[in-house]
């Protein structure tokens, strides 16, 4: 098991570096001289001069990349063009907000999604099943920005129950978390349902019943653990989707998180800030994937203990 984890971590590092590289290339190797671009964007001349010196634009791309990489490892993400502050500082103040939002959304999606999936599987084709599957399908099909606006319209503007935007307390988190989490909840519910249905077809479920176990025990103990294995991996893999969705949700609900920072950076042509936020986000996603792999290995005894045939 330890070897497995170690191997996985080892593989993750080059992937992470590669992703930073891709981001760097995409943002720094644009057609046209960046300096001219910046001047066209009316960025102040002293910033241009400073950046020109800093960027060593005559150096080969690879060298610039390595310099950037080295900087990251020291926590130096460069300086924001527009805001003139260290990118790392800006990210650090935005990150907790995104974290809170994403965690809240994830929690909602698990707390609603898994029971919904179980109930749907156990009462297949019933009203409950149809209801939850419709709910899931809507979650996956609705654009997040639209459902966000709809929620704002109904619960804030018309009913006055919840605050419209911002992040000044837990109440402000309710709508954004639900809006963001709905789609994940939908995916999890559908996956749990299909996974459980498939597990229930297995022979060992028949054995459990033949032992005289109560049906609830058969489902909750024997079936569930097996069916949750793929669901758990998906939960960790959803970090990527949640972060993408967070970009939009933060925009709709004016939450000062990394997503908002990234969008503003694009609109302001603030490359270092954009680069920093993308790198940070991808790091979170890669970490999430790693956690998913390790979690799966831990939960599945076949991987945890390896297959050793004993006679």
């Amino acid at each position, binding site marked *: 098991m330890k070897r497995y984890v170690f191997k996985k971590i080892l593989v993750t590092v*080059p*992937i992470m570096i*590669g*992703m930073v590289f*891709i*981001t760097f290339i*995409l*943002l720094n190797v*644009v057609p046209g001289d960046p300096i001219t671009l910046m001047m066209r964007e009316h960025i102040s001349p002293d910033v241009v001069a400073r950046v020109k010196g800093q960027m060593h634009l005559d150096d080969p791309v690879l060298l610039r990349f390595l310099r950037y990489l080295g900087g990251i490892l020291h926590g130096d993400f460069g300086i924001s063009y527009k805001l003139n502050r260290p990118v790392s500082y800006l990210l650090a103040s935005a990150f907790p907000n995104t974290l809170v939002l994403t965690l809240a959304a994830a929690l909602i999606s698990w707390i609603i999604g898994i029971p919904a999936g179980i109930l749907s599987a156990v009462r297949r084709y019933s009203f409950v099943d149809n209801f939850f599957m419709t709910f899931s*399908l*809507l979650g*996956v*099909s*609705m*654009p*997040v*920005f*639209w459902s966000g*606006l*709809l929620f*704002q*319209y109904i619960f804030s*503007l018309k009913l006055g129950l919840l605050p419209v935007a911002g992040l000044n307390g837990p109440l402000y988190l309710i709508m954004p978390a639900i809006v963001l989490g709905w789609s994940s909840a939908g995916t999890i519910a559908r996956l749990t349902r299909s996974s459980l249905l498939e597990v229930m077809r297995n022979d060992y479920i028949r054995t459990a019943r033949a032992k005289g176990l109560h049906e609830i025990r058969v489902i909750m103990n024997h079936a569930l653990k097996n069916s949750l294995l793929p669901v758990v991996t998906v939960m960790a893999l959803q970090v*990527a*989707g949640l*972060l*993408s*969705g967070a*970009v*939009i949700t933060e*925009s709709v609900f004016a939450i000062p998180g990394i997503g908002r920072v*990234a*969008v503003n950076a*694009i*609109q302001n*042509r603030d*490359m270092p800030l*954009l680069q920093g936020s*993308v790198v940070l*986000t*991808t790091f979170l*996603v*890669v970490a999430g*994937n790693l956690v998913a792999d390790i979690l799966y290995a831990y939960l599945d005894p076949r991987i945890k203990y390896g297959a050793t045939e004993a006679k």
Partner: protein
Amino acid sequence: MRTKHTSLLATANMDEAAAGSPPQEMDVLEKDSFWRSVALSFIKNKLALVGLIVVILLVVLAIFAPAFAPHDPYKVDLNQQFKAPSTTYLVGTDMFGRDVLSRIIYGTRISLLVGIVPTVISMGIGIILGLIAGYYGGKIDFGLMIVSDMVLSFPSLLLAMVVMYSLGANLLNIFIALSVVGWAGTARVVRSQTLSLKNKEFVEASKAIGTRNSKIMLGHVFPNCVPQLLVLFTLNIPGSILSEASLSFLGIGAQPPASSWGLMVSNGREYLFNAPWVAISPGVAILITVLAFNFLGDGLRDALDPYLKS
């Protein structure tokens, strides 16, 4: 003492005895009957049929938009600002007095194009790369897998945003951005199919008679991937549509005065309280379109399920 018929122990098998005459010849699935049986099971699925009909309607709407739109979507008339939905303006007017319904209908063109074209391109790239990687294996495969892993690990919206930053925000660049983001998933699927088919006899046979590799890949391996790819195609389209809508909403996609649904929602945001229809109705259009493709894709997948499994 029991007299045991132990000599029977190893050999008495009733199934063999009962088998009797040799089994009948297995039906060989002809290409035509394959698709016919898929179509038959597809038709039985009501939701899938609804999806198909709606998609067809949307395509018709997009192609013949001028015929269906009651008003000119670009005509500005400040006297007609923010009219609530009525018989003249079925979904009301927006901040420039433009008919929202007509804009939505014209927006169908953008959405469908943005749904289909990048998907076709990215799947094309993915298919080619996947075939090559799976077929030739070795370093090429390894390299491709690393790259596609990296691309897949990016939150897709963020990667699209980065590409849009580099290229500039307009509708055309969205096609490029979405194509770049989407090839990896297809490549993986095609690669694993290729790997499993590579060692089958018919490929060996083709090689033995000296068929060119490219012909083998296109003529033998690829056709077997088609069912899965069809499903992937129909299910990737809504993703593209949502991505474009999101990017346009954030201001990094289509620019005014285009009638992209996402852009319309974004523009209508400030007037949410007084004129909610401006922002809400384009979203409904998105929802309906995405649902239709999802139903279609799910239905296709269910109809193809027995063949996908084998």
